[in-house]
């Protein structure tokens, strides 16, 4: 499995300050060969979409643990479309109740990851979705 040549943006939308999950995923993706950019905390959906488009990434991983995922993911998807980034694959991770997974997927999210998943499985899903 290799994400060599893939560019991935890991982002923290909203005010949630729990960034360790985002960093752990970022480190795992980098070790799998991806070129990883991390935004840091408290970014707006507009900012995240703009960086994603400017940096020409293949995927964006959004990390959310505050319960605001429905609003913030929808906003990020909309901003990506508005800025011509509709081809960028979006993944979501964090504290996401299982009953919200289907709606996120229908909205266009390519994978929803919670803390009980193995890191290698998360990386494998991203790898598969990006068609490496």
């Amino acid at each position, binding site marked *: 499995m290799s994400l060599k040549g893939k560019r991935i943006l890991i982002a923290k939308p909203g005010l*949630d300050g*729990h960034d360790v999950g985002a960093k*752990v995923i*970022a480190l795992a993706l980098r070790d799998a060969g991806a070129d990883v950019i991390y935004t840091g905390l408290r970014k*707006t959906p507009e900012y995240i979409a703009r960086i994603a488009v400017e940096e020409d990434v293949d995927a964006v991983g959004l990390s959310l643990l505050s319960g605001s995922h429905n609003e913030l993911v929808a906003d990020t998807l909309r901003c990506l479309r508005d800025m011509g980034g509709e081809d960028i694959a979006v993944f979501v991770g964090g504290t996401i109740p299982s009953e919200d997974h289907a709606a996120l997927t229908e909205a266009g999210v390519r994978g929803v990851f919670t803390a009980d998943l193995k890191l290698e499985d998360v990386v494998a899903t991203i790898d598969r979705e990006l068609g490496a």
Partner: protein
Amino acid sequence: MSRRPALSTATPSGIEVPVVVTPDMVGTRDPGVPGEAPFTRGIFADGYRGRLWTIRQYSGFGTAEESNERYRFLLERGQTGLSVALDLPTQCGLDPVDPMARPEVGKVGVSLSNLAEAEILFDGIDLSAISTSFTINGTAAIVYAMYCAVADKQGVPRAALTGTIQNDILKEYVARGTWIFPVRPSMRLIADTILFANEQTPRFNPISIAGAHVRDAGASAVEELGYTLANGLSYVEELLKRGGDAAKFCRRLSFFFYVHMDFFEEVCKFRAGRRLWARLLEERFGITDPDAQRFRFGVVCGGSSLTAAQPTNNIVRVGLENLAAVLGGAQSIFTAAYDEAFQIPTETSAEIALRTQQIVAYESGVARTVDPLGGSYFVEWLTDRMEEETRKVIADIDAYGGVIPAIEDGWLQMRIAERARQRKEAVDRVETVVVGQNVFRRPDGNEDLGEVFRVDPQAAQRVREKYEAIRARRDDAAVANTLAALEAAAGKDDENLMPHLIDCCHAYATVGEMVAALKRVWGEFQEPIRL
């Protein structure tokens, strides 16, 4: 069938444990008596007989009205202190109408944007009779000012107030992320609150130096203790620089930790922590007043040790952690509800969590004698080992040049991220066992999460309406004057900001307005992004 995992021989901090500890292996043959320095066995001679720990359940969501109702529910059922959860906009210093705040209003805690909301939050609750803890950091000084203002309004003398504000910004930069201002003005603001509290609210804890969040983010128990004590030493240095009287301010420093699942490591962490703090104060600052050396701490049982898989198993985990906290001598305990891993607790789960503490306190008999594990060969051996290992963590930080540069450079943040990854990989490889999650899973995979709690989706809208209403009603000139005085004082290093913040609160200035005034003087923290 699940395969049976191997029993580990080392604690999660990596301390190899002998199969048996014999008397000749124990360095500390006599751990002394409770109530006497260095307090290995406890900070009070009479332990819990003199005073039981405070049963304090973290709670708060949506509007001040809903949270007030939940507090009354918990107090009616025998809770002895309040613990206020605030929403992220309040924690980050943004008003509920700020575009960045909008999706987060009332989600992880209650929205508290101005004094009118605080008056509702504590309506019918006598602040002279109850202690209140606020998990608040970036805006701690403001929330503390608001609490003083509510007391003023209730006619309660400030000197009667008891409770705690977390007010530990250093760990926010490392693990929890609700920083606002750069490190150095933040340290000044914390010193302001502590010095003010020493004079005006002498029974109130103006800081709770917290390792809990660093722990939950990935640090081991030893690192949790080491980083926390290192942060504690930084606050002592800051206060001494400001001319504070150590005999006075040290008495009001308190600490806050997680209790995770490794029972004896947790018990010995607290025994080692008490002893090491007393020793460090003496070694580094020559502080030998026993009242100043007492290491008082609260704990939370649960956090990342809880699982979303088979959540009712969490009731057992929290019960064991609760017992470890008591045998470790905690002054206040929060037991998380079994559904805390994935939602705000329901009334049912919140009640079980509260009852857990009452069962430990009143049925088990463990609170009868101080430090009942004291003198156990293993417990004394492990306490010594924890102290040694913790000293190494502190030495690493000293070698880097101290906590503040380690944070400003992002070095400490990176260390935590690396440890988090190791912890995650250990779980993935089943070197760390999590029952129901990575072993002994349900064969049918059925994960019944039980009753679901949802914050009222209209709550945020009501918060914004109330916010607009108070802004229309207040005296604009008073708001402008108090904010201008705050801003002017922020530019002078030797002026305590607390009286100004209380004036702003009384004028119904909002949290967002006060933070904006301070940002104009101090700017914002620039997060070092290192991977």
